């Protein structure tokens, strides 16, 4: 049951939520006038005043906050302290220390109140105030020495404060050293026998990871050696009881450290002990799947597991180290390595293990150019052929050996294709499983063909067209032949031959990129993909390609029809929605779905902002220390995402081009603390191109790819437009009469310069379409005009106005040649219309 005052406070909060700040202030003032002077009411009034944020209200809020913070004894109410902290935070960075002082006084006045001290700490964590958190955590660990977690909270807070400070700040080193000394003490307090450990000794793998994290900050020179000492130690190392909690994390860390230190001998030995013994390997079939009981030999009994199984990181380190040692003159190790690989493969009933086979491929690749290697080393060609024989029926076969195929000489590539073709032809087709395996092998073969013969083609000549057309026909034949095998598949499954259809689309797209004036291959691709999606409703590769191709031909509405089938949700709004939403406001602004998808995508940024601090608190509470740096980086990357700014620009343009759609308000800062992150995932699209050329997906994007320079330019452009609107609005009272120029807004300094620079940045001007460049030039001139107008520089105003009307604006409406319908035409027209709308605003200006 709430008290009368709480109910009255609630009324104020409700007004705040409605952004009715003046009404909220009236409610506070009325109660104060009646004589109520509770700390909460005064704090609430100060909080309301910070939202009105005029110089007068800021002064008054500061006075109230100061008088409440300086009270002796300090306030006992946690609610008042929390709200007062928010008041100081709202008053700006110059008052940041006040929050810490406030809590410090309160905690000192109640030295036995652990809840209050913890509340101080949580408040700082939730606001990402690492200076405050460090102080609060140090207070906790000093005051409550029996609570082990407080020691580690102090370590982590010191580390986070260190990370948040500028690199050249002397304090940075200080807090880094402090954090390290504290965790080092915990390390030294950990006994050799960890059955019983002191409270503040290291007890979990997360704390070991924290120690390792700190080493690189504090002693970069010795960090690797010291980290290896920890990882090899009996009480905290990889194989210790404590370290074993995160066995893979620490084991991989050790391999990475050995590799970066170039300690090939240790890397080799470490990997050797980790690899499974042949007896263990025999417990799995050729692809790591556990054998069924009836597949096992009855007298087989696995020995105790010494290694951790068939892990590629271990095999990779093993082969790499052997090669390096061989180069250094130690031939015996390479021989041992080869024998180990061959023995491992032999031990398996199928005669192969995916990783063992691949280790052999990698091993032979080390000697490919040198025509060298221990006796018995197969040539790279033999190894990849062997790999295909054993793994050709797995869809990952292609990507496993792609890098090695590219190493082969021209004639070897031909030999490989011939060999694979012969093997595929001879594959049996008796049972359904054999038929399915043959389809998978054939598709891998087609992928090899694409990589080795289609991908290098770069000229639109008759022979090229013939080669690609033949490839398309072959792959389509494979796709069609596989359809009869999928009758018992679930609705959520893909058909067995889908990748063949995707390959045919890749061939068609190649025809298009070689001759962009001919869009027929795109229409044929649509036919194939639509047909594929009848049978495999959820094939996301097909959906992504179809969205892209519909965009390219200018069928934006059809792309919007397909896009929801990808079911993009949550963080995918930041990583994947760009496939549909890039430049969407200047492609299809007059479709309600455009606004809806943009709005959905934008939700992830607010969601991350509110959720991450709570998760940091949880990580502190649960001792998930090694995760915290990742949580922070994650939240900074979302906050500073290029897509966040991109969608804000799209939404604002949409509001101009599509009457009735609300403006999103002010433009927010680009990036996070000046850094712009690109979290977009382009790599999810199927790709069989040579590594030396652009990825398949990159070869047919609708226009240049917007990135940091693009968002900086367009956010600056939106600021110019926003300034003009605000200037015009401020020029009139509600009744329409003009008011004095002294109260009119001023544009941010040098917006025109920002725009001009964006168009000139080397390598980055390529982020803009021609229509966007023309638009930005226009807005740049308008920015100059606006700045000149506010400083009453009539000469510059006239010059800029002349430039805008006679030159720049007409350029945004360049006559367009429209031989084929495409996205570019729509984009140009809508950008032109937006330019017209903005220019029209000049009349009122």
């Amino acid at each position: 049951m709430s008290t009368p005052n709480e109910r009255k406070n609630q009324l104020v909060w409700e007004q705040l939520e409605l952004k009715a700040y003046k009404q909220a202030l009236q409610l506070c003032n009325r109660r104060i006038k009646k004589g109520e002077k509770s700390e909460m009411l005064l704090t609430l009034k100060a909080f309301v005043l910070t939202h009105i944020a005029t110089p007068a209200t800021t002064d008054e809020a500061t006075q109230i906050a100061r008088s409440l913070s300086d009270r002796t004894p300090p306030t006992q109410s946690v609610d008042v302290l929390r709200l007062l902290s928010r008041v100081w935070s709202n008053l700006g960075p110059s008052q940041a220390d006040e929050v810490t002082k406030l809590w410090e006084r309160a905690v000192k006045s109640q030295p036995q109140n652990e809840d209050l001290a913890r509340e101080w700490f949580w408040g700082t964590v939730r606001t990402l105030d690492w200076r405050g958190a460090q102080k609060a955590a140090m207070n906790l660990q000093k005051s409550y020495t029996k609570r082990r977690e407080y020691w580690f909270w102090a370590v982590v807070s010191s580390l986070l404060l260190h990370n948040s400070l500028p690199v050249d700040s002397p304090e940075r080193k200080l807090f880094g050293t402090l954090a390290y000394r504290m965790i080092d003490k915990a390390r030294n307090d950990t006994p050799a026998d960890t059955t019983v450990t002191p409270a503040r000794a290291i007890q979990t793998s997360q704390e070991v990871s924290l120690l390792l994290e700190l080493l690189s900050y504090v002693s970069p020179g010795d960090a690797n050696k010291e980290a290896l000492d920890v990882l090899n130690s009996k009480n905290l190392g990889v194989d210790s009881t404590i370290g074993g909690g995160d066995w893979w994390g620490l084991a991989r860390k050790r391999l990475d450290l050995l590799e970066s230190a170039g300690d090939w001998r240790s890397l080799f030995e470490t990997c050797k002990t980790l690899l499974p013994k042949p007896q263990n390997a025999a417990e799995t079939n050729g692809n790591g799947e556990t054998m069924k009981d009836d597949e096992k030999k009855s007298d087989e009994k696995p020995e105790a597991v010494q290694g951790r199984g068939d892990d590629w990181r271990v095999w990779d380190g093993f082969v790499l180290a052997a090669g390096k040692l061989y180069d250094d003159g130690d031939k015996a190790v390479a021989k041992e390595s080869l024998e180990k690989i061959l023995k491992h493969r032999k031990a398996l009933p199928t005669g192969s293990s995916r990783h063992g086979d691949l280790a052999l491929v990698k091993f032979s690749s080390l000697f490919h150019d040198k025509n060298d290697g221990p006796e018995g080393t197969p040539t790279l060609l033999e190894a990849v052929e062997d790999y295909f024989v054993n793994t050709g029926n797995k869809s990952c076969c292609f990507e496993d050996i792609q890098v090695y195929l590219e190493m082969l000489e021209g004639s070897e590539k031909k030999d490989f294709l011939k060999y694979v073709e012969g093997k595929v032809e001879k594959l049996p087709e008796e049972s359904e499983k054999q038929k399915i395996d043959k389809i998978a092998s054939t598709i891998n073969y087609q992928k090899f063909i694409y990589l080795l013969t289609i991908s290098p083609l770069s000229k639109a000549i008759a022979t090229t067209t013939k080669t690609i057309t033949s490839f398309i026909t072959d792959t389509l034949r494979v796709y069609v032949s596989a359809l009869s095998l999928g009758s018992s598949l679930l609705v959520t499954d893909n058909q067995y031959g889908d990748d063949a259809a995707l390959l045919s689309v890749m061939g068609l797209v190649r025809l298009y990129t070689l001759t962009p004036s001919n869009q027929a291959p795109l229409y044929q691709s649509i036919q194939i993909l639509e047909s594929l999606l009848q049978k495999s409703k959820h094939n996301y590769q097909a959906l992504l390609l179809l969205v892209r191709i519909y965009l390219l031909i200018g069928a934006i509405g059809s792309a919007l029809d397909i896009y929801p089938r990808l079911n993009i949700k949550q963080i995918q709004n930041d990583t994947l929605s760009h496939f549909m939403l890039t430049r969407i406001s200047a492609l299809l602004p007059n479709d309600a779905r455009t606004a809806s998808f943009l709005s959905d995508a934008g939700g992830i940024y607010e969601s991350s902002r509110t959720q991450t601090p709570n998760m940091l608190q949880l990580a502190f509470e649960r001792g998930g220390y090694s995760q915290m740096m990742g949580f922070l980086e994650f939240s900074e990357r979302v906050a500073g995402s290029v897509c966040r700014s991109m969608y804000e620009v799209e939404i604002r343009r949409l509001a101009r081009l599509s009457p009735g759609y609300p403006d999103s308000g002010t433009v927010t800062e680009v990036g996070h603390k000046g850094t712009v992150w690109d979290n977009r995932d382009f790599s999810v699209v199927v790709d069989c191109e040579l590594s030396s050329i652009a990825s398949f997906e990159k070869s047919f994007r609708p226009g240049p790819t917007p990135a940091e320079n693009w968002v900086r330019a367009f956010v600056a452009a939106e600021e110019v437009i926003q300034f003009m609107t605000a200037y015009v609005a401020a020029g009139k009272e509600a009744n329409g009469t003009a008011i004095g120029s002294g109260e009119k807004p001023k544009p941010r300094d040098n917006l025109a310069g920002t725009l001009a620079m964006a168009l000139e940045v080397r390598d980055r001007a390529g982020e803009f379409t021609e229509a966007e460049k023309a638009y930005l030039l226009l807005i740049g001139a308008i920015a100059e005009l606006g700045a000149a107008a506010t400083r009453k520089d009539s000469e510059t105003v006239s010059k800029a106005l002349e430039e805008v009307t006679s030159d720049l604006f007409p350029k945004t409406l360049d006559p367009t040649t429209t031989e084929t319908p495409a996205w570019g035409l729509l984009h140009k027209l809508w950008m032109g219309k937006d330019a017209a709308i903005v220019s029209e605003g000049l009349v009122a200006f």
Partner: protein
Amino acid sequence: MSSVRPFTALDLFRFNATNLDPLTENYDISFYLNYLARWPTYFCAMENASGRIMGYIMGKAEGRSREWHGHVTALTVAPNYRRLGLAKTMMDELERVTDAVYKGYFVDLYVRVSNEIAIGMYERLGYSVYRRVVDYYSGAKPGETDEDAFDMRKPMKRDKKRGSVRENGRNFRVRPEDVY
């Protein structure tokens, strides 16, 4: 080629090959971070040589007394990387953590009774049906009927009496409210 490693928050930017699959749920950010904060060693990714995420597993430790156990919350492998034994490798790791770190009595997971492929796979991994939870899964769309779940369990070293194995588990029906 595949390799197990701990999952990190930054992997949320890169797990699209798995999460575009219709059977893999996309949860909100806090769901994943919650698991990472509370049970970091139960959350592993499987990656290929170029660092692409091929699959992942997330789990938690829960229960009291003899019901203290590891639970598989999500196990997913991207379509192109199926039939390679990746699920088994990830399950092995979750079981190892249950045994070595959390000292759980068993590992359990829920699966739709209609998902025979998954049930078969878990049976090959040593799991058996402990009970059938009636109407555990809500119908995906209005009008669609709810579906029962099998609660499948595998005893760990600590379960010396194999209390997590029930002979007629498929016929042992419980209501959803009984399992929370």
